[in-house]
């Protein structure tokens, strides 16, 4: 067989995707008022300072909790804190 017609088996360079179990999202809130909503801030103070101010002004009946980081890694809620948190807003991711 001429060299240019020879058929080669060529291997994949792609890494192995391990199976990932996928989960449904958590059920959404039935209402905002009266809930404890956590604002997890990671960087972008131009946005997050305005966001925090606006959220507290527009939703005064929410119990807002806040943790701040300037880095992409948010300060996480502890297991205890998660028990009393109804929802989380996290931003700004980059």
């Amino acid at each position, binding site marked *: 067989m001429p*060299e*240019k*017609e*020879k*058929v*080669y*088996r*060529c*291997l*994949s*360079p*792609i*890494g*192995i*995707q*391990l*199976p*990932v*179990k*996928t*989960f*449904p*999202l*958590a*059920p*959404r*809130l*039935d*209402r*905002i008022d009266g809930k404890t*909503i956590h604002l997890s801030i990671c*960087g972008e*103070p*131009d*946005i997050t*300072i*305005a*966001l925090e101010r*606006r*959220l507290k002004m*527009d*939703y005064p009946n929410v119990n807002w909790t806040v943790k*701040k*980081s*300037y*880095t992409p*890694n*948010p300060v*996480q809620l502890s297991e205890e804190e*998660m028990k009393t*948190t*109804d*929802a*989380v*807003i*996290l*931003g*700004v*991711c*980059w």
Partner: protein
Amino acid sequence: MPYIAKLEKAGIPTVLIDLEDQHNMVREEALASGVPKVRFMPASRTLAGPEDVDKWIQPLMDALTRPLTDEEEESGQFSPSQNRVLFEGTSEKAQEFYQQTRFIPRPVNAELAVYTDGFPIVVPTEERVAEMLKGTSHRPDELIAYQEDRPVRLRVESCKGDPVRFQPRLFTATVEKAAVNAVMAGCKPEHLPVVLAIAETGLTTGTTNFPTQVLVLSGPIVKEIGLNTGCGHLGPGSRVNGPIGRAFQLMALNLGGAIPGVNRMSAHGSPMNNGGMCIGENVDGLPPGWKGLNEEHGFRKEESVVVFMTIGNHGGILGHEFSPGGYRALQKSGHGGMARRLGVKGTPGPHNWLEYLFPRIFSVLEGGFTLIMIPEMARHLYEIGFKSKQDVYDWIYKKSFETVGEYRSRSWPDLTTNGWMGREKTSGKPWKELSDDYMVPVVNDPFDNCIIVAGGEEEGCIQLTGGRAGFGDLPSAAYSIDKWR
């Protein structure tokens, strides 16, 4: 994203705010974390904060209350089919196949190669890969795993034997997969232990700004495989430096899934990643008492290692601030601009040429520097009194002190001090308690600096910002090549 996944799995609804051009990255990371349908909102890179918030605050809150769709309520398993053989056909058709591109939308808006770095590759036929695998005693089907315990890396503790999960897609890979990429890069079988050690690093590419990955080889391997450590070693031409550096970038793309504009978001990329960068240390050029990089990282002189460096996050690459002739004039007879700056006019050397660079080099750059210097210049430093590399690192560190007032006028420290909420290292005090005239180091630790002796005979020093200090919580990392032989 693992944190968001943890919250969602615990029954706490979340919504993310990300930057508007990074949606693909969010989707990929969400899938890898098991919550593919995470809700997110786009923030602007350019609009003023209040105006931007005004645009999406209502949809943001709606994302916390709007009932889930059928898709968002689904659970299951993501397990795409993966074939060992990617293509069967003639050599010409194989080359076409491996060179294929696909369009990446904003923020790239261009065709990018699917399996390569854009350059032609050596097609990884079964025969070529089998030949490559002769370079290691490890089995082809062996998962690439850590060869020793590693400290926390990107917040994940790694133990000996743990499979390496390649960033950013957290894929794993076999020894054969690394060999496939090594073939594509143009490596030879004797390079494979180096390529496997490089794979063991996890192939972190970083994402924003200007991260550049540099592999530095130290130990007997340098001469064994014929790395160029002399004239032009950073440039093209070597059949060793080039392909090994390239193997990193191909593995980052293929084993790690790092794709520009999808999860590798550096606005410009780095030209040093174009084809990759592999440097060899010239052990014969080290002055007496100056340790090789392998020894600096706790290995013995006769052990071969690869040191993985991430440079450029706080700057990039600099070099040749002085002319080679000017350097010779300084050292031989104390004449020229360098001598005038150092105040040694008319006095023959050796003189401390570092004084020409430091501390001015810190004017817009902070953090440790990796200095690539030719043997002659290393010898001059030794003759002046730097009896070890550590002496140089300490000297650079001391030169880096400036007032808190000056330090606060830099950009990166807003991030690295966590918004000035942390504690300053030398005093142990909160940043916010320090007076403006308190002196702080711009280099975090003397060992963040690094010296690589290499290069030809024309007097010059290349400075790379950063180095083995890496980025974020990536630890300084030297990986044994010998364990992959």
